[in-house]
C-alpha cells in the first residue's frame, strides 16, 4: 500500500502524542488523562460486543466492577503485585462475559438491553452482600496503593507514581487496542459485523453464530474488565457506590458519541466521558445530567457515527477532493 510512509508517521505521531503528557502535564491533569485512557479502554470493550457485533449491552459497568474488584481483592487481601492481577482479572471477566453471552444468545436487541440494564442496577447490591463482605470490604470498600516506579526505571527517567501509572495504563491499553484492532481487521471482525448486519445470511454461510456471539461477549468483558482493574489502582479505592448503573450508561454514551464500531471512536469516547461532565458542570451547575443527555441525543440525530465518523468524513474529503468516493 502506498500509504506506508504516511502510516508510519501517523503511528509515530500518535506515540509522541501519547507519551508527551508525561512531560507536559502536571499531576492532576495527568491523572485525568489516565482516567480518560481507562475509559477509552472500557468503551472499546463495549464497542466490540455492541458496536461491531450488534448485541446491545447496558450493563458493562458490571464487568468493569468485576475487574476492579478482582484486582483489589488480590492486591489488598492476598498481597499480589498489580501486574500479576491483570491477567487474572482479564480471565475471570472473560469467563463471566461468556456466561452472560450464553443466555444473551436467546435475546434480541431490546430485550438484551433490558436484561443488561437490570444487571447494571443490581450490581451495587450484589457487591455489598454479606457473603462477599470479607473479601470485598462491603460498603466500606478496599484501599490500594499505586505501584511505585521500579529502581531501574527511575535511575534512567525520574518518574513519580502518577506518571508511572499513566505509563502503565498507556502500555496495557495500547496492547489491548492493538489486539482489538487486529481482531477487527481480520476474519473474525468481519464475521462479527456480518452477524450484526445479516444474521440469517451469515448463518446460511456456515458461520457459527453462537460461538461468535458468546466469544464477542467474552472478549468484550475481558477488555472492559481490564479497564476496571486499571481504574481500581489509579483511584486507589473501590467501593460498590463507584459502580452504579450510571457507569454503564456512561460507557454507552461514550461509545455512541465517540463513534460506534470504531477503534478511534473508543478513544474519542473515553475523552468525552471524562471531560464533558466538567464542561457540563460549568454550563449548568445544577443539571449537568441534562446537558449530558442533550449532547447524546444531538449526536444521535446529527452525528450518528460519532466523532470518529466526522473525522473519517473530513479525512475522506481532504484526501481526494472531487473524486467519487468508493464505499
Amino acid at each position, binding site marked *: 500500500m502506498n500509504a506506508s510512509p504516511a502510516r508510519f508517521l501517523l503511528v509515530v505521531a500518535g506515540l509522541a502524542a501519547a507519551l508527551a503528557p508525561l*512531560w507536559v502535564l502536571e499531576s492532576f491533569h495527568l491523572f485525568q488523562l489516565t482516567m480518560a485512557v481507562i475509559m477509552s479502554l472500557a468503551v472499546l470493550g463495549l464497542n466490540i460486543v455492541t458496536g461491531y457485533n450488534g448485541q446491545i449491552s447496558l450493563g458493562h459497568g458490571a464487568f468493569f466492577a468485576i475487574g476492579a474488584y478482582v484486582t483489589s481483592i488480590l492486591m489488598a487481601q492476598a498481597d499480589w503485585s498489580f501486574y500479576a492481577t491483570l491477567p487474572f482479572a482479564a480471565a475471570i471477566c472473560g469467563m463471566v462475559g461468556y456466561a452472560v453471552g450464553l443466555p444473551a444468545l436467546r435475546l434480541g436487541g431490546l430485550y438484551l438491553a433490558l436484561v443488561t440494564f437490570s444487571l447494571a442496577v443490581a450490581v451495587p*447490591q450484589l457487591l455489598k452482600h454479606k457473603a462477599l463482605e470479607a473479601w470485598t470490604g462491603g460498603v466500606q470498600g478496599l484501599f490500594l496503593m499505586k505501584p511505585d516506579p521500579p529502581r531501574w526505571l527511575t535511575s534512567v527517567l525520574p518518574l513519580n507514581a502518577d506518571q508511572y501509572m499513566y505509563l502503565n495504563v498507556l502500555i496495557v491499553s495500547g496492547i489491548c487496542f492493538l489486539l482489538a484492532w487486529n481482531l477487527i481487521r481480520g476474519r473474525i471482525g468481519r464475521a462479527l459485523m456480518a452477524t450484526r448486519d445479516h444474521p440469517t445470511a451469515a448463518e446460511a454461510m456456515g458461520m457459527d453464530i453462537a460461538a461468535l456471539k458468546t466469544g464477542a461477549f467474552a472478549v468484550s468483558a475481558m477488555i472492559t474488565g481490564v479497564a476496571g482493574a486499571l481504574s481500581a489502582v489509579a*483511584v486507589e479505592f473501590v*467501593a460498590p457506590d*463507584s459502580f452504579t448503573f*450510571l457507569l454503564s450508561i456512561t460507557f454507552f454514551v461514550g461509545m455512541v458519541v465517540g463513534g460506534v464500531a470504531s477503534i478511534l471512536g473508543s478513544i474519542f469516547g473515553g475523552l468525552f466521558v471524562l471531560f464533558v461532565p466538567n464542561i457540563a458542570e460549568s454550563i449548568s*451547575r445544577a443539571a449537568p445530567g441534562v446537558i449530558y443527555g442533550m449532547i447524546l441525543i444531538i449526536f444521535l440525530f446529527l452525528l450518528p457515527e460519532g466523532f470518529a465518523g466526522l473525522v473519517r468524513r473530513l479525512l475522506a474529503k481532504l484526501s481526494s477532493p472531487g473524486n467519487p468516493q468508493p464505499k
Partner: protein
Amino acid sequence: MTISRRLLLAGSAGALAAPNIAAAQEAPGVTATEIHIGSTNALSGPVSSYSVISRCLEAMFKRLNDAGGVGGRRVKFTVYDDAYQPPRTLEQTRRLVERDRVAFLFNQLGTPTNSAVHRYVNQRSVPHLFLATGADKWANPREFPWTMGWQPSYRVEAQIYTKYVLEQRPNAKIALLYQNDDFGRDYLHGVQDVLKDRFRSMVVTATNEATDPTIDSQIVQLQATGADVLICGVVPRFAAQAIRRVHDIGWRPMMFMTNVSVSVGVVMQPAGVEKGVGLITSDYRKDQSDPAWAQDAGMNEWRDFMRRYVPDGDLGDNNYTYGYGAGTTMIQVLRQCGNDFSRENVMNQARNIKPMEVATLLPGIKVQTQPDNYNVIRQMQLQRWNGQSWERFGNVIEGAG
C-alpha cells in the same frame, strides 16, 4: 531516536520542576487578600438534596465577606460536583488541591466519597475538615490527623439508643432496620458495640436498599419476630413509610429513628403526625418547627441569615440548620487562625476548639475538639414526638470520647 530521547529527558527535568514554581503566596490557597477553601458535594444526581448544605455555606461565607472577611481576607469557597461517585470525588479533590491549590478542604459530603480521598489528603497534609457525614471513622487523630468530622457519629447515636433500651427494658427483644450501606451499617455496629455477646440473642435485623420502593415487607418481617423495640437507621423516605406502617399494622414497639430522618416537614407530616407519637430520636440541633424555639435568639439569628442570604431556601429543611452549624464552626477556626492561614495552623486551630455554643445547636451541646479527640460534637439529647413537636427529655448525653 537518541536525539529525541535526550530532548525528552531535558524537557522532563524542566517540566517536572515547573509545578513547584507557584505564584507568590504565603501558603497554598492564601494570598494577602483571599483564602481559597474547597469542597465537594453531590450537586446533581440522586442524593443532591444535600446540595443545599453547600448553598448554605456559600451564603455564610458571603455574609462573612460582606462583614469584612477574616484576618483581613475574603473567603473564596469553591464547591465541585461529584454526583456522589467516589472516583469523581477523588478527581475533584485532586483538582482542588493540585490545580486550584486551595488552602484546605471543608465539609465534603458522603462516606464512600470521603473514603476515596481519605488517604490522599492525609498523605499531602491537607486539612480535611468537618466532613458532612456521620460515619465513625473520621475521628482518628492518630492515623489520619488531617481529617475531622463534625456531627455526632451514627454509631454513637445507636449506642445511646441501645443503652437507653437496656435501662428501660433490660430483657427487650430488639428489631433493627438499617439501610444496606455505610450509613445504615454504622447503626448495626453501634448496637453491637453495646450488646456484645448478647447481640445474637437479643436482636433481629432487616436491611433495605436505597432503591426499594417500600419497606413494608421488612416491617412485617420484624414484627413477626415478636420484637418490642425497633431501631431504624434509614433515610427520610423510608422513615416516613416505617412510622406510618408500624402504626397501621398495630405494632407498638419502643421505636427509635435516626436523627437524620426526623424532620417535621419531610418525615413526620408525610407519615402522619399522630402516627409517630412516642417515637424517640436524638438530636444535637434545634428543630426549627418546634414552637419552643420560636423566639429563641439563636434560631432567630439563623432565620435572619436565611431571610437575607438564602431567601428562597426552605426553612423547614434542617440541612440549613446543619450547614449553619458547620459554617459557624469553620468561621470560628478561621478567626482563631489570626493572620496565619497555613495548613499547619488551620489544622492546629481546628484541633483546639474550646467548647463553643452554636446558634442552631441545642443548649448544653457544644462544639469542641482536643488534639487527641476529634469528635467535634459528642453530645446528644433524646427527644420524643408528642404529635406536634419533638419534646426533649432527660439530660444531654455524652457519647464515646
